[in-house]
């Protein structure tokens, strides 16, 4: 296989990777145009990232220049962000909220989904339709009263409202996990019942281990949702020590950006700090992201 590959020209090798079959000249030219189009589209998607990282490493006087490679490299920008704001606290808060939000929503949604899939009881389908219907509700309808609830119990300006609502599951994840549970053969559960497993045991020792991938899908999606959310931190957090990374970046933008002192290199360095962890997590869990998107299409 590799020998054959080496005997080809680079274009042909590329063409074979991209999926071209025949080597005829009338096919190669459209194929090359096609490859150029594909690479062109990719560059359009990647250029903003490159421009972001590049500008975050430029000095104040260079930041408006058109050069792609910073000269000199101002690594100092990242130190300045670190000094200007409690970035470490923001990172810790984001991680704390992200992990708690994802763990709680995964476990609670799985528990609830099991209730809606293994058991057959009167009114189940009507109740499940209600679960699905809540997905249609715009978040702003409940936003204000939910804020007032957290305000009543004195937890505004703490991290609690950012994750604790996840203890009660989330409609979309309940739907998604139920799909997976419905795919499990019922005999597995009956066998476990014969062996004396409790209902909780059926979920814990049969359903959960068999749907590990689905649980990871839910976990990574919720982590992304939590990591990128600005609305809840805007509503609930006042002290800058409590900010999550997105809320912190917004504060920096207000302080150093258009309204303030125009220190774009600081703001862009902060944007890199907010973005990089998410990109890393995406690459680690890529197949779960793709699986999740594919499954979410089932809703239609």
């Amino acid at each position, binding site marked *: 296989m590799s020998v054959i590959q080496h005997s080809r020209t680079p274009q042909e090798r590329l063409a074979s990777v991209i999926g071209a079959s025949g080597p005829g000249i009338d096919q190669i030219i459209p194929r090359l145009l096609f490859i150029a189009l*594909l690479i062109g*589209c990719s560059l359009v998607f990647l250029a903003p990232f490159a*421009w972001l990282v590049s500008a975050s490493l430029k000095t104040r006087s260079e930041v408006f220049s058109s050069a792609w490679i910073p000269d000199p490299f101002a690594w100092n920008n990242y130190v300045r962000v670190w000094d200007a704001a409690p970035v470490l606290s923001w990172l810790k808060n984001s991680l704390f909220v992200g992990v708690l939000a994802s763990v709680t929503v995964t476990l609670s949604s799985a528990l609830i989904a099991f209730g809606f899939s293994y058991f057959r009881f009167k009114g189940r389908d009507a109740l499940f339709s209600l679960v699905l219907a809540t997905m249609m*509700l715009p978040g702003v309808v*409940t936003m204000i009263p939910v*804020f007032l609830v957290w305000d009543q119990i004195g937890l505004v300006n703490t991290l609690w409202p950012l994750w604790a609502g996840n203890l*009660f599951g989330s409609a979309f994840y309940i739907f998604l996990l139920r799909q997976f549970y419905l795919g499990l053969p019922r005999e597995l559960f009956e066998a476990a019942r014969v062996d004396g497993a409790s209902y909780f045991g059926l979920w814990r020792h049969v359903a959960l281990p068999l749907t590990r991938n689905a649980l990871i899908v839910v976990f990574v999606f919720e982590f992304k949702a939590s990591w990128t959310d600005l609305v809840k931190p805007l509503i609930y957090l006042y002290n800058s020590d409590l900010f999550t990374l997105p809320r912190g970046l917004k504060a920096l933008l207000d302080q150093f950006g258009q309204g303030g002192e125009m220190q774009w290199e600081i703001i862009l360095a902060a944007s890199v700090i907010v973005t990089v962890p998410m990109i890393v997590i995406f690459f680690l869990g890529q197949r779960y992201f793709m699986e999740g998107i594919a499954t979410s299409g089932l809703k239609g």
Partner: protein
Amino acid sequence: MSGQSLVTRLSRRERRVTLEQRERLAALAFISPWFIGFIVFTAGPMIASLVLSFTNYDVINPPSFVGLDNYQRLIDDPRIELSLKNSFFYAALYVPLMMVVALALALILNQVGKAAGFFRTVFYLPSVTPAVAVGTLWLWLLNPRVGLVNRGLDLIGINGPGWTTNPDWIKPGIVLMSLWSVGSTVILYLAALRNVPVELHEAATIDGANSLRRFWHVTVPMISGTLFFTLIVNTISALQVFTEVYTMFFGNMRSGTASSAGLFYNIYLFRQAFEFFRMGYASAMAWLLFLIIMVLTFIQLRFSKRWVYYEGA
């Protein structure tokens, strides 16, 4: 059968009833977290929000009942009309463009062999970028003087518009930004394209259909379910755009032309609720949005019967 006494048969039925009851109890236990959450975070707040919409409430003083005043103000307030127009203009521009771009990219990826996974990742990367970072980055990219977009346009001889300063170009600039995050729809469309049976294309080819006709008469009908799903979901979410635009043009010490041209409905609602603490008015705004979304979705569902093809239906 005949050997079975009445007593054993009765006790068996009894046991079955208790099993049924036990199952129901267990099921209720499993779904109880959802039920509690539904009451505390959905149903209760919905009722509370409706009640609040008939009051004036600033969080500090107790709410005072004002009847339909807030709804009357929805009609009188020119910024309601403005923000609704802004949101609808954005949705009407973004959703069709997004679907066309996503479908084009998915069609390209569908022609790609082994490397499709790599390019899929490239197109999806913007979608995992935090929305605040997207807004910040694009405020920079769309900068009329030094932004990458206008520099790129400059290269092909176009004098780029004031994306962040000219009221007429602010929403198109926001649409451009949103199109960058088209990745998840591309992945959905690609999955749908791969489910179109090859035999259908072969049969159409034998019947003499060229690739354009095959696209319109085979591909589009076969993926119409997915197209419809993304139309509904993205219309609903486009009308509720908040984070990127709020990041770019609103917040502390911000005002200017963008505060009118970029004032989307949810931004105005958020400001009413959490910057001016007009909780009653903001609740009325929320119900208006809910109503609009329900009506729109209903209309789209009605129309879908004409053009969406469901397999096996």
